């Protein structure tokens, strides 16, 4: 047994990982989710808003992190649309606009066809400059944005007529996979204007530890990785869609199945590796 473990082929580990991810997907395994305090805080921040309030949704991620952040984007947009909030989409990442298009297509056009572009939601698109963009639009939106992503001048978009800067937003929702992202929104937008702006965020697993120092004063709520997405999805769907929502609103919870089996496999591999290590150490001492 020990010699099998010692000589365990790398390709066999790859195969085990493939099965660990594939089998729960094929079996459509679902596990119950217990929302954490941080997911509840994100939910409560949006729940506290009134119909017509302004929400800025910054989609600072790309397809590489879509696996974690895509389901969050879907649930957050769905929740905001259910609350009849006015949605202002923007991106500081070059492929962010495609992420925005996905949720507009999958959530707003499909389930909220009564929402009118320019009156209920607007896509401001991508702007280069990272934190520089945040610093400028904090005091004057039109210095950088003369048109929306479709090329329509801002003064011809009804929901932007009386918006001069983003301090007029009632909430910022930042979905980020790196820099620029949530950290920059917290440092450059919320920290200088703590009484004007509030922010909640969703981020990749690797980014979450870097954002914990800002909780709860500067960042009241945070969805970390697919686990955070699943917890928030559970909260939103329980509140608005009932027990059997469409598959696209159960995506995060569906992805928790492969995560469970993959994590258990990782633990078993670590234990197996240590068994080999300590047995060899023991033999060496003899």
């Amino acid at each position, binding site marked *: 047994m020990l010699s099998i473990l010692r000589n*365990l082929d*790398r390709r066999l*580990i*790859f195969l*085990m*990982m*493939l099965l660990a*991810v594939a089998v729960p997907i094929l079996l459509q395994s679902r*596990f*119950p*989710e*217990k929302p*954490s*305090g941080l997911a509840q805080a994100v939910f409560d921040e949006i729940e506290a808003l009134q119909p017509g309030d302004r929400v800025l949704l910054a989609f600072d991620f790309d*397809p*590489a*992190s*879509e*696996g974690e952040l895509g389901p969050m984007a879907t649930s957050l947009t769905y929740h905001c649309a259910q609350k009849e909030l006015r949605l202002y989409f923007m991106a500081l990442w070059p*492929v962010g606009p*495609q992420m925005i*298009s996905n949720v507009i297509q999958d959530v707003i056009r499909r389930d909220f066809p009564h929402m009118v572009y320019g009156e209920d939601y607007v896509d401001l698109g991508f702007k*280069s*400059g*990272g934190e*520089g*963009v945040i*610093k*400028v639009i904090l*005091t*004057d939106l039109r*210095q*950088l944005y003369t048109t929306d992503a*479709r*090329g329509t001048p801002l003064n011809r978009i009804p929901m932007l007529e009386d918006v001069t800067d983003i301090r007029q937003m009632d909430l910022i929702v930042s979905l980020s996979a790196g820099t620029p992202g949530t950290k920059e929104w917290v440092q450059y937008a919320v920290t200088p204007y703590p009484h004007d702006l509030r922010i909640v965020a969703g981020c990749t*697993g690797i980014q*979450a*530890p*870097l954002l*914990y*120092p800002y*909780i709860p004063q500067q960042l009241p709520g945070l969805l*970390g*990785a697919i*686990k955070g997405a699943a917890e928030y999805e559970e909260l939103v769907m329980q509140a608005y869609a009932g027990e059997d929502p469409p598959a696209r609103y159960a995506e995060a919870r569906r992805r*928790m199945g492969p*995560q*469970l089996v*993959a*994590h*258990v496999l*990782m*633990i078993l*591999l*670590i234990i*197996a*590796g*240590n068994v080999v*290590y*300590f047995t060899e150490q023991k033999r060496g001492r003899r």
Partner: protein
Amino acid sequence: MKRTIPFLIASVAGFVLIIAYFVPFAEGWGESVSIWFDVLAAIAFILGGGNLLKNHLQKVSARKPGWAYSAITVAAFALTLFAGLAKLGATPNPQYPASSAWSGAYRETGTVFWWIYEYAFVPLTATIFALLAFYVASAAFRAFRARNTEAALLLGTAFIILLGRTFAGVYLTSWLPDSLYGLRIENLSVDIMRVFVTAGNRAIMIGIALGTAAVSLKILLGVDRSYLGSGDE
């Protein structure tokens, strides 16, 4: 001169931003500098594209090892750039029906740019990211050893976090009575993140901030000019 003018621009911009942060009267100056920064960031895309072409074309022409990858990079870059700029496959904007595809959106469904994004960029980037799972599993088996007390602590923490981020954590310790609620794995994982990770990260952040302030001051005062290059080229 080649180094003095860039140094003066960096120094003036930096000091203006510092003054603008502390002096309300100078807030507008800071905004102007921020706008210059955004304009430069947009122009940097062109510079970046030029740099990419220069480096990879040099590799191709010199037939350096791996030149074929460079050729693919240049071809992919040129194709995507052309598809986006020419708005290939875009339908005219309904507001301007008589005009050409140029009035349409380059990334609307059905355009060549959309096709490249949807069927090449998305699967490729997602695949590269997904490969991490396989390599992490292999590395976990081969390298994650409890060689000493620190490594054993790290290992124990990893187990709690790995289990706490799934339903396994809830399932394994749900039998614990309410008086030991904090010892349930899902709560332990939250506490590790909230207390130990936060404390460690705050210490690192404060250290980085002090280091950044010191380096920034050296750059603004011209003590450190290494960012300007050697000036020999």
